[in-house]
């Protein structure tokens, strides 16, 4: 599903590469934790998968497609197959829960009938039944993140990328968030999650890839957070 071949990324005006000679592959349906200290290259990795950035060197394949060969106007279609969740939730403040999730479908041109059917399903899936009318500022951090996940998942993407989704959430609520992610993963969606949250990583025992200064230093199935403390 995701394949990195000797990928290097150097941002302009920086001497040290953000990612250096990264070689890894993520299979369909896997759940992968991407760990490492700040600046290790986790966010860069995710942005490369989305084609928000281009690698300085190397090749990236997502869902079998070579990103280098993907023309600019085809990129939106790639992004429709990838869902994203962020640390700062990125909800639209003047739309309620239903509208925020529906927005993701409206902008890609789905019909009203389809939206009416699918959006409530996915809002229930993340555990927010009955809260369709709430505005984001009426929700707790955990609830807002669930809305974000509903929005990321509503179009049944192949891959879900999560960039420190529990960063702004207390440990107890984080567990609920991870349960949702796990549920999503069980439907067959590949999940890649960048995180600092040692407790979560340790409790779930999924594949762990550790990055340090842009290089992959550990790639362990059923791993723990490890020395990245």
């Amino acid at each position, binding site marked *: 599903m995701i394949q990195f071949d000797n990928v290097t990324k150097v941002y302009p005006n920086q001497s040290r590469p953000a990612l250096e000679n990264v070689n890894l592959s993520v299979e369909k349906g896997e759940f992968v934790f991407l760990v490492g200290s700040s600046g290790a290259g986790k966010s860069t990795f995710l942005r490369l998968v*989305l084609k928000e950035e281009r690698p300085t060197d190397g090749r990236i394949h997502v869902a079998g497609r070579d990103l280098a060969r993907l023309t*600019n106007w085809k990129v939106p279609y790639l992004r429709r197959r990838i869902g994203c969740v962020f640390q700062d939730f*990125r909800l639209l403040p003047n739309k309620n829960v239903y509208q925020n999730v529906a*927005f993701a479908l*409206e902008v890609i041109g789905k019909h009203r009938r389809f939206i009416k059917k699918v959006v409530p399903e996915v809002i229930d899936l993340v555990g927010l039944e009955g809260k369709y009318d709430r505005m984001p500022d009426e929700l707790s951090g955990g609830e807002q993140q669930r809305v974000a996940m509903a929005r990321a998942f509503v*179009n049944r993407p192949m891959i879900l990328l999560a960039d420190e989704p529990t960063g702004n959430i207390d440990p107890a609520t984080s567990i609920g968030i991870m349960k949702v992610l796990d549920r999503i993963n069980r439907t067959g969606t590949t999940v890649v999650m960048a995180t600092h949250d040692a407790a979560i990583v340790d409790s779930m025992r999924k594949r762990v890839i550790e990055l340090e200064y842009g290089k992959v230093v550990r790639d362990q199935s059923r791993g723990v957070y490890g020395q990245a403390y």
Partner: protein
Amino acid sequence: MRSQFVFSEIWIGLRRNLTMTMALVVVVAISLSLLGTGFLFVKQVDRARSFWQGKVEMSVYFCIKSSPNPVCEQDGPATAADKTELQQRLESMPQVQFAVYRSQQENFASFREEFSNEPSLVKNTPNGSIPDSLEVKLKNPEADYNIVASAVYGAAGVDTVVNEMTILDKFYKLLEGARNAVVIIAVILLVAAILLVANTIRLSAFNRRRETSIMRLVGASNFYIQLPFLLEGTIAGLIGWAIAAVLLVAVKSLWLDTLNQYFSFNIGLSAGDLLEVIFLLMLVGVLLCGATSFLTLRRYLRI
């Protein structure tokens, strides 16, 4: 459906920068009306010119019984011999294209037609008070008028020599002066309109950056992202155009038509001319707003 979504996004956008949108509409309206007025003036001048194109430049009026000229009173009305002699002399001159004789009845009939805007004048001019004439068309009116005129002055039986061109010179100058002034101001205002469209779109794009970044993330096509902004600019432009169209109708009926009355000749513009100008303005307005929106988006909207 999708069009519903696009329109609701446009409406939200227009409302968010309501003041800027209103400023845009006003500037577009004023600049388009000025441009339209300039076009109307151009058409008016063309209409006047073509009316007079086929006409002769010089009319030589003969003495008749009621001519007030002292020379005519002394020598009496022009004789047939005088008229024929003068006609032949003129036609033999190299500068003259032709010299056609027009009888009193013919001149009276065309007098009534040309002054149809002034019924009281026509009523008070009895048949028989308009003299007959030689209508002379010159090959090079500007250059040769004086040469031919001096040959005619003082000839037997000649009452007056009328330079048909001078009547219109003033009219042309007036219209052309007005047209130039109006067009210059219109162009300045159009530049202002372009800047305002660019600024409005830029502000709109900034205001909606959250929505836009999520749209990009979620995989909305570039066209879909840009469309509400493009339409916003074009719709504001169209509203401005509609206002300009109304103003132009007012300009034509109040101003140009009254101007025409002063000149007594029926060379006013028709409704068809007005519609043509309004349609042209719409093209200008839509192209201007659309193109500016598009170019501004390329610069300020991250895709």
